[in-house]
């Protein structure tokens, strides 16, 4: 007896496929690291491999996340986190790739800053921004968190040439007219679309999150930021 694949089949297939591809990526990463360890002089050439592995993984995560967000029973999985921990950890993930590429990653976050957010989704957004920055920066990337006017602002900034003017204009237009980002013909568009969705899902005190892309970063290059509505630090009294 055979039947047409249903939505449940697709869901199961998606989950299993991702599990499987992730296993492959983990092995691939391991082999690359083993090769690199044997070949220190040419270490840099492996950075591209690692960068691509990271990109495939990020794409997978984004795909799964978008699928889930679109599902009927989706809801945000917010929990409370220390943001400095969160950023340091992302930093550790990118350490090898960036070091090999000769890029310095600077993390700026005040000690003990905390907020409620969906870590998985926001991680995906920052991955997307870091991937971009890694491609276009000259020598430095800043990953930064500040709490300001009821928002937690997470930003990724670089000292590259910045976003193309035309892209910023187009984004602005779309945001002004409240139309959807065009995702049909570029993965950059898909990344922005995903980031906007994730930001918008974070809501608190009547505010919704949003993203901002400018060329006025601390390092002179591009600056991507996600702004999430967030209260002041947690204060536990007994």
């Amino acid at each position: 007896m055979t039947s047409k694949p249903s939505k449940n089949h697709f869901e199961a297939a998606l989950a299993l496929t991702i599990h499987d591809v992730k296993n492959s990526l983990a092995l691939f990463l391991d082999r690359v690291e083993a090769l690199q360890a044997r070949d220190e002089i040419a270490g840099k050439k492996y950075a591209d491999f690692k960068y691509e592995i990271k990109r495939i993984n990020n794409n997978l995560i984004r795909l799964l996340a978008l699928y889930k967000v679109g599902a009927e029973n989706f809801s945000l999985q917010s929990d409370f986190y220390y943001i400095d921990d969160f950023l340091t950890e992302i930093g550790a993930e990118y350490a090898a790739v960036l070091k090999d590429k000769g890029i310095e990653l600077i993390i700026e976050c005040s000690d003990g800053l905390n907020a409620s957010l969906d870590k998985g989704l926001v991680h995906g957004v920052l991955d997307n921004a870091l991937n971009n920055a890694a491609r276009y920066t000259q020598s430095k990337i800043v990953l930064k968190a500040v709490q300001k006017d009821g928002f937690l602002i997470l930003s990724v900034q670089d000292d590259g040439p910045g976003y193309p003017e035309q892209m910023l204009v187009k984004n602005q237009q779309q945001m002004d007219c409240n139309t959807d980002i065009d995702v049909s013909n570029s993965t950059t568009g898909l990344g922005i679309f995903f980031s906007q969705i994730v930001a918008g899902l974070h809501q608190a005190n009547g505010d919704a999150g949003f993203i901002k892309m400018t060329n006025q970063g601390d390092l002179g290059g591009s600056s991507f930021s996600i702004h999430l509505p967030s209260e002041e630090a947690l204060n536990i009294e007994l």
Partner: protein
Amino acid sequence: MNSLDMLTGSGKSGPQVSISGRQILIVDDFSDMRIAVRRMLRDLGEETADMASNGKDAIEKIRHNSYDIVLCDYNLGDGKDGQQILEEAHHMGFIKPSCIFIMITAETSMHFVLGAIECQPDDYIAKPFTKELLQHRLAKAVTKKDELMDIYKAMHKKQYADAIKIAEQQLVSKSRYTLDIAKLLGSLYLKTDNYEKASDFFQKLLAQKYMPWAKFGLGQVYYQLEDYTKAIVVFDELTAENEYYLEAYDWSAKCSLAMDDKVQAQEKLATASRISPKTVARQCELGGLAKENGELDIASSAYRSAIQYGAHSCFKSSKEYLGMNEILLEKGDTLKALSNLKEARDQLKETPADLLQVVTATADVHAGKNGKEEAQRYLEQAAKIYQENSSAIPNEASLTLAATALKLDDMKLGTAIVSSLAENNHDDDELLGDLNAMVNETGHADELSEIISSSTEELRALNKKGIQLAESGQLKESLELLEKAAEKAPNSKAFNLNTALACIMLMKKNGADDQLLFKARSHLERVEKAGKVDERYAELTKMLDALKR
């Protein structure tokens, strides 16, 4: 500001913890993955690590080695999953409080919600990960564990009041691990029935930030305060937010049950079992509910799953087989019922309490289909198990055996069990009620009611005398008397606790003494074994610990 070099190297804000010299276990069903993780560990300075490819192997290794770190993949194919390994190892007491258990998953949404708080891994890592990330997480987990060690140790010894005190102090002193401490503290308030404090605590947290676990805690408070409608709303919201929040389904079902809505309760447990079919206890409960709701097919499939997943785990018990037995009998399939019980006897050889119940049930089934001779044979077998393991047999099992013996007119065995039950539980009115009901139902009230009341009274009088002696300062005499009584009723909580107390009082007066220490300890252990641990038990354990120092 910290640069990445500091993080991975020796910078002041980077993790400083070295992992070399630690005993590590890697669990993954993929040999390539195991090797990859081991290579990472080698790069991080740890030369050796053990490896396991499945749940059975992992638990064996955890049992025989005292690992400092376990890195376990969640998805291990057809066998046990990572959470089951953790729960079993925890349940069997194989995991020392200082052990760091890290779960490796493919998906981040499963994090934080898979199991009960005392069985949660120290951290989760999503695949694929780099050695830098692994190092970072390990270092963080080690530091956190060190910081929270005093709380964990007190919890491990079941000294919850102490654990609360430590947690409260650490919370006030603004530790870096405020959040983790808060989580533990909340669960400790709940564990010690401190609902007012718990409610206040969770509400204060939730007023500031959204944390699912705090909301879950609040739901438990509502349940305990019998506000089931409010509790259900909380639990259902949690599962709507995250379908992997399995415990929330269980609690929602508990609420429905409390409101006598068995259909709804069944529904919740069925959902949780679909998401995670391998939890034996939940499948058993689902089976029981479905049976009560008249859904025999669902009940039978739940019990079948419980049997299947229980077969190779420490969570297997007579429950699922006996549940299945009832279903098969109700369907009139005696043959299948007998073969199910045979499988149960094979599976449960090692645990006398479970085996006893299954053998008793076998005798019952034979008796029911007029196989008197066979029934006698199994009753004798059951009697033998009972006699050889009397201290390990739970009351419920003894009660059923007594009933079967009386039904089959074995008055000698029936009377012996009834009087032993009465003696051992002279302080438990509920059980004495059940016991009287049972002798009534089997038509032996005339002969046995008298035995129950006389055994009970004799022991009650002894206990009273022992306390009086102690109060008048005759500690040695008191101990002698209580000990004798405890021999007569080895499972009696009152005697075991009072005997331990008498030992402790004697030592307080005359100084610590190896023999008395041993005696006190073994009586406390009996209480623990009988599953009767309470505040008084905890208090005595603490007093005993203080004496040892």
